[in-house]
């Protein structure tokens, strides 16, 4: 059962990091734990022979999204310092109850499903070449759409987060004369 051991070795810390990410008090710790959980998931993908997806997960989640989150935390950190109040929302108990209910429902559904003990077929590798081929043939339209979506999201994010320009701009004639701004006594 080396596989099951490997699974447990990966899954247990991943779950632990996920729990930590959702419960720690300091936001930066939460973000870093989330990054660790994402990395753990990437390992799980690798364990499931999805090499390409695993690396993509690592690249996108740890390399990009975690960094973004960290930046966002730093840019909004005044909140954390100023309020000093509880990090949990007033109705957190209700939320937790719903989450447990949800988990129970999902688990129940899973435990009752017939495909529960299905074992993996022996050979199911996704060679990178095949993924590339599929992306360029069968999935080429979704790929293009993703490209457009990402471009749009990039521009949108920049526009949303951009600080508004001050309304008063220096008149054009003044800009043309650099001396005026530099030669102040």
């Amino acid at each position: 059962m080396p596989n099951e051991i490997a699974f447990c070795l990966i899954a247990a810390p991943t779950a632990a990091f996920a729990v930590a990410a959702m419960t720690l008090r300091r936001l930066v710790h939460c973000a870093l734990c989330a990054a660790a959980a994402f990395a753990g998931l990437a390992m799980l993908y690798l364990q499931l022979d999805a090499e390409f997806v695993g690396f993509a997960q690592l690249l996108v989640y740890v390399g990009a999204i975690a960094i973004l989150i960290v930046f966002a935390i730093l840019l909004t950190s005044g909140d954390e310092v100023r309020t000093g109040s509880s990090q949990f929302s007033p109705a957190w108990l209700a939320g937790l109850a719903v989450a447990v209910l949800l988990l129970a429902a999902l688990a129940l559904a899973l435990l009752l499903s017939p495909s529960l003990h299905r074992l993996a077929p022996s050979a199911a590798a996704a060679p990178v070449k095949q993924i590339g081929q599929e992306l360029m043939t069968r999935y080429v339209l979704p790929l293009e759409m993703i490209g457009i979506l990402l471009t749009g999201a990039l521009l949108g994010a920049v526009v949303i987060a951009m600080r508004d320009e001050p309304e008063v701009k220096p008149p054009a004639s003044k800009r043309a004369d650099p001396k005026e701004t530099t030669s102040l006594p």
Partner: protein
Amino acid sequence: MNTPLSHYLLFSALLFGIGFAGAVARRSAILVLIGIELMLNAANLNFIAFWRYGPVAGALTGVMFVLFSIAIAAAEAAVGLALIIAIYRLRKTVQVDRLDTLKG
């Protein structure tokens, strides 16, 4: 490869529950976002597991779905965090229970 499929599915459900709990119980919008990302990841794990344990080995649908899902998650995170920053700039807070201007 003899780990049964149920392990992955249960683990994914657990991860989903954790993410959900975080998303509904934390006050910071950023943590809500992280919770949602965790839920998304749990779904991705399901896809990969179903692909791996699926009857047709050559069908890459699960893998493709996850690849696209990751790309969309990147877009979502970028826009979401930009929104959070914009909200912070406007309201000086990112605590979701204070952002209730849309009260009915």
